């Protein structure tokens, strides 16, 4: 997870090395915008900037093979989540997931997501997803780090460590 600005986080998964290279490059460019213009990019603008970069590199000799989730809080629009895949498709979504785990968690999210979730309900929903992975996913994933963004900024929540299957 990369902190793009005070209220924007970028989660970057995929090819080893590509993830860090691409995410750090985006991170520094977002900071440069802040220095040049005196204010930070909104999450929507940051997501579109990232998408454009990913798309430009896609048809070069050096594409980045990364899947991204961009989360941010905008003063006017409120919280926003953006899903981006390695082919540079961008979509604003109420919930999203990447990887094999997505096959399992997206159905949980589909079933239990509501647009008016409170903070605690949202964290519980995340816990539900991780419990589902713990039950049905072939790989053992012992620990998850969790971050939350609200109007005050980015907060580190406690690590989620699902216990052994019943």
């Amino acid at each position, binding site marked *: 997870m990369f902190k793009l600005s005070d209220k924007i986080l970028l989660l970057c998964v995929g090819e080893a090395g590509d993830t860090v290279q691409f995410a750090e*490059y985006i991170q520094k460019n977002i900071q*440069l915008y802040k220095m*040049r213009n005196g204010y930070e990019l909104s999450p929507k603008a940051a997501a579109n900037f990232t998408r454009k970069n990913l798309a430009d590199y896609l048809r070069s000799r050096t594409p980045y093979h990364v899947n991204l989730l961009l989360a941010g809080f905008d003063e006017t629009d409120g919280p926003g989540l953006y899903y981006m895949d390695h082919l540079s498709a961008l979509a604003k979504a109420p919930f999203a997931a990447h990887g094999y785990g997505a096959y399992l968690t997206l159905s949980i999210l589909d079933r239990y997501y509501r647009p008016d979730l409170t903070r605690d309900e949202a964290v519980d929903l995340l816990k539900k997803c991780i419990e589902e992975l713990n039950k049905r996913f072939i790989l053992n994933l012992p620990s998850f780090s969790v971050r939350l963004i609200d109007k005050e900024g980015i907060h580190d929540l406690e690590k989620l460590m699902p216990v052994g299957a019943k």
Partner: protein
Amino acid sequence: MSYDRAITVFSPDGHLFQVDYAQEAVKKGSTAVGVRGKNVVVLGVEKKIVAKLQEDRTVRKICSLDDNVFMAFAGLTADARIIVNRARVECQSHRLTVEDPATVEYITRYISSIKQRYTQSNGRRPFGISSLIVGFDFDGTPHLYQTDPSGTYHAWKANAIGRSAKTVREFLEKNYKEDMESDTDTIKLAIRALLEVVQSGGKNIELAIMKRDESMKMLAQEEIEEYVTAIETEKQKKT
């Protein structure tokens, strides 16, 4: 006297005339003063009188380069814009490759080497600005550097550039105290130095400060007025 045509040429007595003329351009710019305290660094500039219909907040002479470095300049504003932009990109580039914020000296050296390059290529004129670059390194040491159109730079404890630089510098030499612990004293020194040469007091001063581990803060007009009134009461007490 025709040696000022192409700046890549030395004159018989060893001058680069274009660089000297650039320094003249700097002397025409409005005054900027910088003071390095123990825990705070301060930059103050003389605000140019704006026309009645002009929005005065668009004239910004103090620019932040990164979270830990900012600068003020005297001379050609357009030239400064280019330098500031390149410096900002270099600050981020440094962070990208080295994972650490650039030191004040590094970015000063970078700006100076850009300026020097333009004194040694044909068809280009030197940058007509001197700059005061201040900030804190990541180990917490404060710095103040001054660059000039020739591309040289020096570290200073306090300095001034621009129109009445000489008067302000003499004032600073008389009144600077080593390792000023108090932030207020450092800020007051910068304001007093500017008040020497600026007409009509606090209204024409723009001030920015940076405390260790904090980002640059531009002082609001009311805060500057408070300092100015405090300074005047002190002056009255002395006389």
